[in-house]
C-alpha cells in the first residue's frame, strides 16, 4: 500500500549498531488516515493569501527507531512571504500539550505541509522541528491535495540531512522515505463508509445502515463479480476472446476451495449451527419483550 511515488529511497538499515547514541534514520513511515484528513481539512480552511498550510505530526516510533507511525496531526499557524517565514511556536506548544492530555503516547515526530515544493523555508521549518524532536530526526510529510491543475494527489515523506561543509539551517537535502497508509482492521469499516459516500451523488449517505442492508450490498457486489467472471468464462469457451492462462488457474484455485469437504458432515454442522443461531434469535427476542413488559409494568398504578 505505497502512498507515494516509487522513487522513494528504500534504506536498508545496517544491523550492526556501532554508535547507539545516534538514533537511526527512519526507513519507513506509516500514516493513519485521520492525520491525512485533518491536513485536508486544514487546507480547506486556509485563508486566501496562504499558498500552503503547515502543521505538526504526532505519532509513535518503533523501539529501534526505524519506523515512524504518524497517528494524528494538528494545524499550526504560520506565515511566509518573500523575506521571512514565521511559525507560531507558542501555538504549537499549546496544542501539543492539549493533545498529549488525551493521547499521552503520541509525541511530535515531524511536520506536514501541503503542496510538493520544497524550498529554503521548508529547510528552516525542518530545522525548527528537528529541535522539537531531538534527539530523533524530524520527518516531513508533503501532501499534494491535487487541487491545483496538472498535479496529482499524493503523499511524500522525507527525512532531512545537512548539506555543505558548514551546515546551515537553510540548507538541507530532503531524502524521500517510503510511506504507507496504515490503520487498524476495526477502522476499515469507517473508511469503507467514506469511500462509499464519496461515490454517492452529492456526497452524502444516510445513517444508520443496518447490518442486514450492509450485508445485502456486499452480497450483491459478490454476485456482480461472479456474473462478470461467468460472462468472461463463457466468452472464452465460445472462442470470442483468448483466455488468459494465469487467470484460469487462479479461478480454478479460488473456486476449487469451496468444493472440498464431505457432504454429510457439512450438513450436520450446518444444522447444528442453524439451531444455535435460531436459539440465539429466540433468546434475543425473549429478552427484549421481557424488558418491554417490565418497563410497561412500572407505569401501572393500582
Amino acid at each position, binding site marked *: *500500500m505505497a502512498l507515494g511515488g*516509487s522513487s522513494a529511497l528504500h534504506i536498508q538499515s545496517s544491523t550492526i549498531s556501532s554508535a547507539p547514541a545516534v538514533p537511526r534514520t527512519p526507513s519507513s513511515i506509516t500514516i493513519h*488516515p*485521520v492525520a*491525512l*484528513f*485533518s491536513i485536508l*481539512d486544514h487546507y*480547506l*480552511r*486556509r485563508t486566501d493569501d496562504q499558498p500552503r498550510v503547515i502543521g505538526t505530526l504526532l505519532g509513535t516510533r518503533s523501539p529501534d527507531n526505524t519506523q515512524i507511525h504518524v497517528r494524528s496531526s494538528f*494545524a499550526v*499557524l504560520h506565515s511566509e512571504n518573500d523575506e521571512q517565514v514565521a511559525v507560531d511556536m507558542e501555538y504549537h506548544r*499549546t*496544542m501539543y500539550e*492539549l493533545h498529549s*492530555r*488525551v493521547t499521552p503516547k503520541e509525541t511530535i515526530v515531524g511536520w506536514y505541509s501541503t503542496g510538493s515544493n520544497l524550498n529554503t523555508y521548508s529547510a528552516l521549518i525542518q530545522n525548527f522541528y528537528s529541535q522539537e524532536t531531538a534527539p530523533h530526526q524530524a520527518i516531513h510529510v508533503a501532501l499534494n491535495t*491535487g487541487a491545483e491543475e496538472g498535479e*496529482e*494527489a499524493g503523499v511524500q515523506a522525507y527525512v532531512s540531512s545537512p548539506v555543505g561543509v558548514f551546515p546551515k539551517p537553510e540548507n538541507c537535502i530532503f531524502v524521500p522515505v517510503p510511506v504507507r*497508509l496504515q490503520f*487498524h482492521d*476495526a*477502522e476499515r*469499516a*469507517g*473508511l*469503507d*463508509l*467514506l*469511500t462509499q*459516500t*464519496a461515490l454517492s451523488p452529492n456526497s*452524502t*449517505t*444516510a*445513517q444508520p*445502515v443496518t*447490518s*442486514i442492508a*450492509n*450485508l445485502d450490498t*456486499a452480497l450483491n457486489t*459478490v454476485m456482480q463479480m461472479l456474473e462478470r467472471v461467468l460472462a468472461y468464462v463463457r466468452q472464452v469457451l465460445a472462442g470470442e476472446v483468448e483466455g488468459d492462462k494465469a487467470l484460469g488457474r*487462479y479461478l480454478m484455485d479460488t473456486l476449487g476451495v469451496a468444493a472440498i469437504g464431505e457432504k454429510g458432515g457439512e450438513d450436520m454442522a450446518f444444522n447444528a*449451527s*442453524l439451531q444455535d*443461531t435460531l436459539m440465539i*434469535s429466540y*433468546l434475543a*427476542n425473549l*429478552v*427484549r419483550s421481557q*424488558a*418491554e413488559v417490565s*418497563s410497561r409494568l*412500572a*407505569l401501572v*398504578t393500582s
Partner: protein
Amino acid sequence: MAATSMAAALAASLPAPTAAPTPVAPTYEAIPASMSKVIDIEAEIPLQVVQLDGLVVTKILKHAREASSATVHGLLLGLDLDGTLEVSNSFALPHHVSDEDEKSAKSSARYQSSMLRSLREVQADDSVVGFYQATTLGAFFNQNLVEIQAIHQDKLRHGGVVIVHDLSLTARGNASFRAFRLTPSFLNAYKKCNFSTSSLVNHRLTFSSILEEIPLQVRINPLLGSFLGSLTKSTPSLLPDATPESATVSVLPPSFSALDLGTTGLTRNLEQIIEAVDNYRTEEGNLAYLSRQIARERARADNYVAKRKEENLARVAQDLAPLPEEDVARLFKIPAEPSRLESMLLLGQIDAYGKSLEGTASSGLIKMYSVKAAST
C-alpha cells in the same frame, strides 16, 4: 453563546469574499442579551438532520478504538444552518479517573476552552454542538450520557446532540453512527429530579422514550472525496509477471468484511445480557425493599393517627381538651419514593443488548444460507 454562533452562521451564509480588498475592517459588537433571542433566527428552525463530516467519522473511530476506558467522550464542533446541524470537527476529551473530583472537572473545563480558542485561531469551527460517545453492542444508556446531555440541552442551541458510535458493529464491517437527543418529557422529569412512579406515569416514560433519534447523514467534502478517489484507484502493478491477485495495486483495496463468517463477540454479548439482567435484578430488589419500607412507615403513621383520634374522641367524651394531631410528620419519617431512573436505564441497556444480539443472529442466518447456496 447564541451571539457568537449567530455571527458564525451569518459568516457561513455570506458569499465567499471576493478578491477586492475591503477598505475598513468591520467591527463587531456584542449583541445584548435581551436582543439575542430576537436576532437568533436559527434557533427557531427545528433541527431536522445531523450532518457528520468525514473527518469527524475518522476521528471518532480512532479515538474509540485507542481509548483505554470502556466509554470515550468527545466534543462535536460545527454550526447549524437551516435545520441542518453540520458537525465539521471534533476533539477528544481526556478520560476522568474520578467524576466527582472538583479539580478534574475544572481542568477539563480549562482544557475545553483552550482547545476551542486554539481551533478558532486556525479558522476551524469553534462552537460546541454536542458530544459523541462510543459504546459496544449498542448499550449506550447510562447516567453519564443523560447527565451530560441534560447540561447541553440547557446550554446549547437546539439542545445539542449526542452521536453514538458502536464499536462492535464497526468491527463487524458496518460503521454505525446514530444521533440522539433527550425527549422533552424526559427532560421535564429530569429537571424536577423526580422519577417516582407517578411522575413516570404522568410523563409516559419508558426507556424507549428517553432519547429521540435524529436522522444522520455522513458527508464528505469534494476535496476529501477526490483524495479518497485517488487512494482507492487501482493501478496496474509494475511487476511484469504479477499473479492475478497482485496484478493491480491500490492503496485502499475493497474489503468485504461484512461477509466475515466468524461470530466473534456473540459470547460477550450474551455475557453482557446476563450482567445487565443481574444488575437490573439488584436494582429492582432495592426498589422493592424501599417501597416496602415506605409502606411500613406509612402504616405505622396511619395507625398512630387513628389511635390519637380515638383517644381524642374519648377525651372529648370526658370533657377534656383534645391532644394535638400535627406532630405525625415529625414523629414518622416517611422516606421519599425511590428514583426509578437507574432501573429504567438498565432496562434500556438490556433492550439494546437484545437488539444487537438479534441483529447478529439474523445476519448470521443469511450468511449461513448464502454459504450453503455457494457450496452446493
